[in-house]
């Protein structure tokens, strides 16, 4: 098994980008607000180094390691989606009722569309494992792309503002997922034809796109969010009173109406 010069450069660049990003997340204490995102970056660091050594050990160890990490990666990305959703859609202690149903619908539709499209794609590959790899990458990209873009749309539709850092994380993941859809679609189409040259070139482009995203996160997560304006004490007291009254009114109103 042989790694080309560009393979090594991209692996190293990706590894270093993740390492710097991890240092920013820990150094700037962003891991407190985003523990799952931080874990995902840490997992990426471990995955890159593990896969690098597994690759040198042969095809089978690399393949098993690749798939083990791919499953964990997909699970953690879904948890990042949940983590971002908590930051954006749950400003209070509970999930707003209009968010819950929209959220379930979006997840269900994204899943159905993702699975249907993955089933439709018949990768041009000559063995079962290659086909599974391509399909798995495609499903993961489509699902994440749909969920993150839906999240952007939903927050606007519902009128919920974004905090600076969560916005940057979701923007980066949304952009990377869209690139992921395009690249895995092309990989499905071309498969491992021409000795896998096209597949490898697309993988390189995808890693390059990830490095750009990681750079974006390093810069934006390093910067501090704007200082929020302080709420006067009297206003805070009044707000609590108004909120209590509003909760009471809402409860009564939802049960009222014309007989």
């Amino acid at each position, binding site marked *: 098994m042989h790694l080309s010069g560009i393979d090594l450069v991209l692996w190293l660049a990706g590894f270093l980008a993740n390492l710097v990003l991890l240092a920013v997340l820990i150094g700037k204490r962003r891991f407190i607000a985003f523990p799952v995102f931080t874990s995902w970056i840490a997992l990426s660091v471990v995955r890159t180094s593990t896969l690098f050594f597994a690759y040198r050990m042969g095809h089978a160890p690399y393949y098993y390691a690749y798939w083990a990490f791919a499953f964990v990666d997909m699970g953690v990305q879904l948890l990042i989606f949940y983590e971002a959703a908590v930051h954006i859609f749950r*400003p*209070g202690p509970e999930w*707003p*009722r*209009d968010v819950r149903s929209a959220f379930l619908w979006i997840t269900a539709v994204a899943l159905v*569309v993702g699975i249907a*499209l993955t089933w*439709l*794609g*018949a990768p*041009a590959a000559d063995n079962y494992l290659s086909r599974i790899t391509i399909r798995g990458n495609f499903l993961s990209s*489509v699902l994440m*792309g*749909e969920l993150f*873009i839906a999240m*952007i*749309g939903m*927050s*606007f539709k*519902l*009128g*919920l*503002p*974004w905090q600076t850092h969560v916005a940057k994380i979701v923007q980066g993941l*949304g952009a990377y997922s*869209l690139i992921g*859809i*395009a690249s895995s*679609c092309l990989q*499905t*189409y071309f498969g491992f034809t021409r000795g896998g040259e096209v597949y490898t070139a697309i993988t390189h482009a995808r890693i390059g796109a990830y490095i750009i995203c990681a750079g974006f996160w390093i810069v934006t997560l390093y910067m501090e969010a704007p200082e*929020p*304006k*302080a*709420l*006067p004490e*009297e*206003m*805070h007291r*009044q*707000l609590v009173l*108004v*909120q209590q*009254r*509003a*909760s*009471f*009114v*809402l409860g*009564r*109103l939802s049960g*009222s*109406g*014309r*007989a």
Partner: protein
Amino acid sequence: MISRLDLFVAISALLLIALVVMAGVYWKKSRRAGDNTWESLLERLNNVNRSNVARVALDLIDEDGSNTDAGPELDSTEVWTLLGGLEGMEQLEANCEVLIDLAFYVQREYPEALIIAEDLRLKAREIQWHVSRLKGAAEHGNLETSFADYAQRAAATYYLMTRHLLALYEAGNLPGYSQLQAAI
């Protein structure tokens, strides 16, 4: 003959384009929403006959939001006339969009006030739901029977919401209180 793989690529490309367009549109809209000023939000408010809305609302509830002891007395025709029919309801709906933006503005500028802003946002969306039910009824020819029920609840919610919003601005001594009071 289109192969399965061609169909897959075509649908994937359409999905990708749709997602990119969605992301672009919402990104642009949210940037525009971020540029909103207090004055620009108020300019978007439609003139709603406040005394009529109050009359319809207070027929169903009293000032603190409890049901009136006597129950609603206005009939469907009176509710229809006072609220200006479906057109009047659509104006309320449009104002709710602005109130959601106002809640967004408060939440963004004063993050500590997010609970009240969230409450206002939920109420505005509740009115939008009532109005959407009315539109659905109009499409199915059931408007007359549905109007009084949904419209009166929507008016009551709108009334309470605007009172809460004014209370918030008055309590916080925020700029634009008198403008808001005149507009809603």
